């Protein structure tokens, strides 16, 4: 035996009709609004300082090369300038957009900083003598930036991306895809050995294709979703098969982000196929997972720095390159 549907509705309506909000408190609104504005300003200042730190370390690393004994012999001055440039620019662009409320700006900020954090963490371990000061700094600055972003950043935005069904999944997917574009662009710029132009061009093409997919997906086009998923599969496959040349760490990084995007994209494809919104509420992402990954990356970077502070270990890593 259940409840009477009509009576349940009536009871709910009666309960709501009794509501009488208290008298308006304008001063409390203004005070809360002002406090939030101050917090946002503080966030902007911290982002600018972090960007200055990253930019400064990059310039010092490039102009004063070699800045420390922890740099491998094979690393040249121009190489240092090129290795970090995409992520440094990405970081600064992210810092410039941190105050924007639109969804696209928030995605760019998060994507730029995630890409920097992941690349720096992997780089600390796989290329320890390449950018011994810049990579740990980048990891720290990106982690600090990501941790200070408001948790509700993706919730509604300024109405430029009004999607609600699967909103979180699409926004996370887009963020990962934009981060991949930055990682691929950086890889394209990093290929400096003779005869690597073809690989650099392939990286550039992969980044461009991914970017077109991102634009399509942001505009909620089916081809955008398909292109993003296909590009991910191709990049991950090409990285492991040797068509695109990366260190195993970067190949693993691109594969993990590709797999995450596939996992998020499959329910979307099903929705597209059925052409209707799901009946039941989707399981929301667990909010602390992202923060846990950020902290894990920082710890990994710190342990990498400690490990390669030993000259013998560093010399072995440099020789193995």
């Amino acid at each position: 035996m259940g409840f009477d549907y009509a009576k349940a509705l009536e009871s709910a309506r009666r309960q709501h009709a009794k509501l009488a909000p208290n008298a308006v408190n304008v001063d409390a609104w203004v005070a809360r609004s002002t406090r939030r504005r101050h917090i946002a300003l503080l966030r902007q200042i911290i982002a600018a300082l972090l960007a200055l730190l990253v930019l400064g370390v990059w310039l010092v690393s490039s102009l004063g090369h070699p800045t420390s004994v922890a740099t491998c012999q094979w690393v040249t001055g121009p190489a240092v300038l090129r290795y970090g440039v995409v992520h440094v620019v990405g970081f600064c662009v992210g810092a410039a957009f941190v105050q924007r409320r639109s969804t696209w700006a928030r995605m760019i900020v998060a994507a730029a900083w995630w890409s920097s954090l992941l690349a720096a963490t992997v780089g600390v371990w796989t290329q320890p003598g390449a950018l011994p000061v810049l990579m740990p700094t980048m990891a720290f600055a990106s982690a600090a930036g990501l941790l200070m972003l408001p948790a509700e950043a993706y919730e509604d935005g300024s109405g430029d991306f009004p999607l609600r069904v699967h909103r979180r999944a699409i926004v996370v997917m887009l963020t990962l895809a934009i981060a991949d574009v930055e990682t691929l662009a950086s890889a394209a710029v990093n290929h400096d050995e003779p005869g690597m132009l073809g690989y650099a061009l392939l990286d550039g093409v992969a980044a461009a294709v991914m970017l077109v997919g991102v634009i399509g997906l942001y505009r909620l086009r089916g081809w955008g979703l398909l292109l993003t998923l296909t590009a991910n599969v191709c990049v991950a496959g090409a990285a492991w098969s040797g068509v695109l040349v990366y260190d195993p760490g970067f190949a693993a990084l691109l594969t993990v982000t590709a797999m995450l995007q596939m996992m998020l994209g499959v329910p979307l494809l099903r929705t597209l196929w059925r052409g209707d919104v799901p009946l039941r509420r989707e399981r929301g992402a667990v909010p602390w997972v992202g923060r846990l990954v950020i902290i894990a990356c920082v710890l990994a970077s710190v342990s990498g720095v400690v490990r390669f502070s030993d000259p013998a270990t560093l010399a072995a890593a440099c020789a193995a390159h």
Partner: protein
Amino acid sequence: MTARSPAEVEATDVAERLAEAYRCHGAAVARTIAAYTGEPSMVEDLLNETFIRAVERIEDFEDRSTLETWLHGIALNVARAHVAKRTRRRRIDAALPPGPGATAAVDEDVGAREAVRVLYRALDALSEPLREAFVLCVLEARTLQDASRRSGVAVSTLHARRQRAEAFVRARLEGDR
């Protein structure tokens, strides 16, 4: 008394404008929040949050809709975020006290309270767009055109969502226990 900066004066002007809107539409917005969340005890907080966001975003307000519709849009966003947070919290902490309806007056009919609780449990299981269609079209008994204007969803889509949501909630209520 300390002198206010131009920014503070401007913020106060905006708040005064919204205070007027609160006096005219506050009760209706509160009812929408209550209908969406099913938590009368939270309405005051969420209503305040709605108007604080409105203070912050008044420059985004365009004359494409009325102030009332715009405020309802913000209120729905606030209520939606609250429900999403509540759902996550409940998943993590199964020991939370019973949800909607538990704080209603003690003299209220126990059966009716239980029915409302089950109704909101069914709504919690629905996806957001279906929940919104149900709240606007069924609980608040708005016309499809009015609900469409407030939610920004096409009338035909809203109609289909309302039917699916209603069938689901009815089945949950009548089949429960």
